[in-house]
């Protein structure tokens, strides 16, 4: 599993900038991010090289930040690649809460991050189907 930082953001100018500044000042590198919002608030999700430190500095600066674990998988970079993996989970009736992708490709394959309802079961199925699941240490050091 990969540690992800989630930050609660009011929909207000400057808050996103401030998060990135705080991380920059602490020498933390952002690997991947996704932002989702309603009309009132947003949740920023980040994969960084030093997740524990990131969570700590964000909290010190008054942000509501927490650590969540997500699954990282390598997806063959070809049509139908993602569909195949999602089908495995659907067949097992595991709901995906959200997913987003890495911008950079670590290798030949694309890299997807996802949060699912039943993570241990999802991991078991993905491994059984020989999907490449990537562990945290490798992600942080990409």
């Amino acid at each position: 599993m990969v540690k992800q930082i989630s930050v609660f953001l009011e929909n207000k100018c400057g808050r996103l900038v401030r998060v990135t500044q705080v991380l920059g000042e602490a020498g933390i590198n952002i690997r991947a991010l996704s932002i989702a919002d309603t009309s009132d608030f947003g949740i920023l999700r980040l994969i960084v090289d030093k997740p524990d430190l990131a969570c700590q500095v964000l909290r010190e600066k008054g942000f509501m930040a927490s650590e969540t674990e997500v699954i990282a998988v390598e997806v063959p970079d070809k049509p139908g690649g993602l569909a195949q993996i999602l089908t495995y989970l659907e067949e097992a009736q595991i709901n995906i809460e959200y997913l987003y992708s890495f911008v950079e490709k670590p290798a030949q394959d694309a890299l997807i991050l996802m949060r699912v309802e039943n993570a241990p079961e999802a991991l078991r199925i993905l491994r059984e189907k020989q999907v490449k699941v990537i562990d945290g240490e490798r992600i942080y050091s990409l």
Partner: protein
Amino acid sequence: MHKDYLSREEIARLQEKRFRETVERIFKRSPYYQKKLKEHGIKPVDIRGLADIHLLPFTSKNDLRGQYPFGMAAVSLKKILRLHASSGTTGKPIVSGYTRRDLSVWADAVSRICQMAGVTREDIAQISFGYGLFTGGFGLHYGLEKLGAMVVPFSSGNTERQLSLMQDFHTTVLVSTPSFALYMAEQARELGYDPASFHLRLGLFGGEPCSDLMRQEIEKEWGLKATLNYGLTEVMGPGIAGECSERNGMHLLEDYFYAEIIDPKTGERLPDGEKGELVLTPLTKEAFPVLRYRTGDITRLIDSPCPCGRTGRRMDYITGRSDDMVIVKGVNIFPSQVEEVLSTFPEVSPHYRLVLIRQKGFIKDLEVQVELTPQGFSDSFRELEQLEEKIRSRLRSTLSLGPKVKLMEPKSLERTTGKSRRIVEVEKGELE
């Protein structure tokens, strides 16, 4: 401090005597009331005692404002030793003057309130109320001094320094508004203070209402016993009522103040025990006497005996202000009701704000903004939205109106050192 233990008959006799003196003084010396009572067709012979008080007209905040600056004076100005004024957030402030005797009554009243709360001569008390025109700072100052406590007259602001002096002086009593006590606790935590390194044992809080949750929170953060007290500049300042260590309501100093409860709509006097607007008549005031002042505070009087032995009737905690009350879609809402509901959710903090959304001059909607606590934050939208919905539905059953609930980042709502401003109005479309 024997005044706190007079029998009910003795209190009644004293009130009767002082009320007659007040009325006599007012007919003789107060140009404002001479004119006002004449307009109401009231002559000195009509008011023979407290039984006739209901014949006297009320005095409102606006009446006092209209007499700015010295229209309420009933003594020559050279006999006035000090002036205070309420914060005039709208229009002119309300001025209050004090003769030497008024100041001595005030110090006596506050010292009794402090003693009731449990302050002793051994205590070191830091006053974090603003010193200045606001009655909080000086009011508590002279009362505590009279009691014999060691006073640290810090005034408001500069939280970091407040904390370091409290730690260095081994301060035992904190005097402030409840919201400032919470704010200081937050700052202490942020600056890395160990709460156990403070010696606070007692808090005297006033200047704004304090919900049960706020009180619990303050006690938990500081490890002190929190007591509440009540007062207002228009009638004197702090020192009108305060909690004893039983904390089952605030004992009124009835030898100095005559209290009535009225229906805020009709002005009818309500029987003891019923909830309504508190009306106060100070019984000894010389400089700026006031008759039947409508405080705007909603409470009730409790006259069951108190285990502490003090005989002054108690006033219940303020559950709202008649002028804080907002009407949204025909529903009367007191901010305190919202606060009570929010206090049942550990997922949100006691810091909240009511936003009245106006459209074409009418209040169209209510939004309740409240800060999320770490416990309430979830990475899942569904859970956050469920939380908003849960709060909204509980508010709906209390208020009979389901306001919009908006979760906010921690510390994003304004903290003030004085009365916290919990109600704002915006035009529709102005919301961020």
